[in-house]
């Protein structure tokens, strides 16, 4: 029987084709969708995104995706259906961002306590564009088989500051040390782009596929099961 694909939330923020193709290469099927129902029913959800925080929240709202996405993330937080936030998709999980243009700071989904701030150090090139290393701050099955200190591809001007240090999965140095990965239960999110991070990024996505389709559990226990496809 064909398994239900992972839902990649399409809310008009950046191109999703690379994420779809990278998931396929990583061994599981994922489809981009703007349907709230598909997000509610998918066995796993990926929230990607490139662009401005405020516009992203407006787009989610307008498409009727805000609640299904927030609920899916909250479910994952409690160990339910796995949820993966990427780049802007990580930012949106927090309470608010200082990425505003004059008005009030836009509010996020608020699944993780904390806020999103801009790189501020004098002389630092912003956005950070390129390959940087991550240091493991927790053990999590999403990191299975990956080496501490691996390089991933980053493109961003803002980063999240989790209020709870225990949520930090990975840390990266750029002007300051920031959270390049956050995790709790089966909710994981990365500041970098695994879909553009070559074999290391594909390995990470493959681990997400395994989380979704039951080959590995968030408790970290390996068990037999089919690989998604």
């Amino acid at each position: 029987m064909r398994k239900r694909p992972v839902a990649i939330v399409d809310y008009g923020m950046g191109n999703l084709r690379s994420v779809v193709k990278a998931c396929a290469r990583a061994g599981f099927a994922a489809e981009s969708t703007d349907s709230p129902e598909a997000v509610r029913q998918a066995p796993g959800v990926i929230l990607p995104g490139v662009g401005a925080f405020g516009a992203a929240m407006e787009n989610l709202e307008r498409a009727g995706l805000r609640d299904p996405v927030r609920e899916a993330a909250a479910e994952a937080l409690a160990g339910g259906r796995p949820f993966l936030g990427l780049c802007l998709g990580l930012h949106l999980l927090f309470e608010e961002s200082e990425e505003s243009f004059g008005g009030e700071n836009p509010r996020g989904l608020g699944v993780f306590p904390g806020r999103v701030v801009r790189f501020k150090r004098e002389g630092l090139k912003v956005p950070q564009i390129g390959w940087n290393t991550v240091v493991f701050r927790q053990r999590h099955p999403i990191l299975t088989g990956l080496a501490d200190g691996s390089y991933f591809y980053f493109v961003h001007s803002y980063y999240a500051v989790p209020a709870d240090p225990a949520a930090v999965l990975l840390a990266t140095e750029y002007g300051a040390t920031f959270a390049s990965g956050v995790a709790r239960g089966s909710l994981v999110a990365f500041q970098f782009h695994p879909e553009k991070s070559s074999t290391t990024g594909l390995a990470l996505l493959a681990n997400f596929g395994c989380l979704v389709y039951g080959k590995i559990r968030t408790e970290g226990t390996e068990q037999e099961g089919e690989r998604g496809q």
Partner: protein
Amino acid sequence: MLAKRVIPCLDVRDGRVVKGVNFVNLKDAGDPVELAAFYDREGADEVVFLDITASHERRRTVVDLAARTAEQVFIPFTVGGGISDLDTIRDILKAGADKISLNTAAVADPSLITRAAARFGSQCVVVAIDARHVMPSSPESEAAPSWEVYVHGGRTPTGRDVLEWAKEAERRGAGEILLTSMDTDGTQGGYDLPLLRAVSEAVSIPVIASGGAGSPADLAAAITEGGADAVLAASIFHYGTYTVRQVKEYLRSQGIPVRLTS
């Protein structure tokens, strides 16, 4: 620490890879997607496609190239060559490219940079500059060296100063400068370090060095002496003189941070 990037460049015409020696004498060298996937496996940090197709089919072929690449290549890639409107940029990015590079059309209408950056974000707008050294009026001249912007694949002088143009591109929202020296391009005698240094100091966005790479030491010099954030090369990789890995191992031995895959 943010790594310095090593970027193979693929010149593409009619969907096939070619390599220009001083932008003429092209040799056919294969399928661009296959070659890019090979460079991904070898540890390249990005690839750049420079499309030099001259037909009206160009737009369709570059979008098709981006779409096919996105299925096989999982590192960032840039598509450049003849791009002059926002719709084409949108289609290329939507097909899966990470960045586009603008050259001749941006010189003709600099607002293209502004509009592209406003709509798609600075991170995906690379401004490519082809520079040629301006000979001083007399050999004894003590004026600072200067360089002129060339367009149309390096054939047409514009009278514009390279440093001024680089600064304007940054001001208008370019995310990176891809700087090619027409003087050193194709010579394999090393990058134009004074040009690189001058542009790196003039702007605060990343500068990608291009033109003249002949050995790993040339790439190292572009970074340490030229101040480049990334080094682009074609011939030394395409003809197998050095692998990406060999180049990166050399850079690391020189204390330059690079991503080396195991």
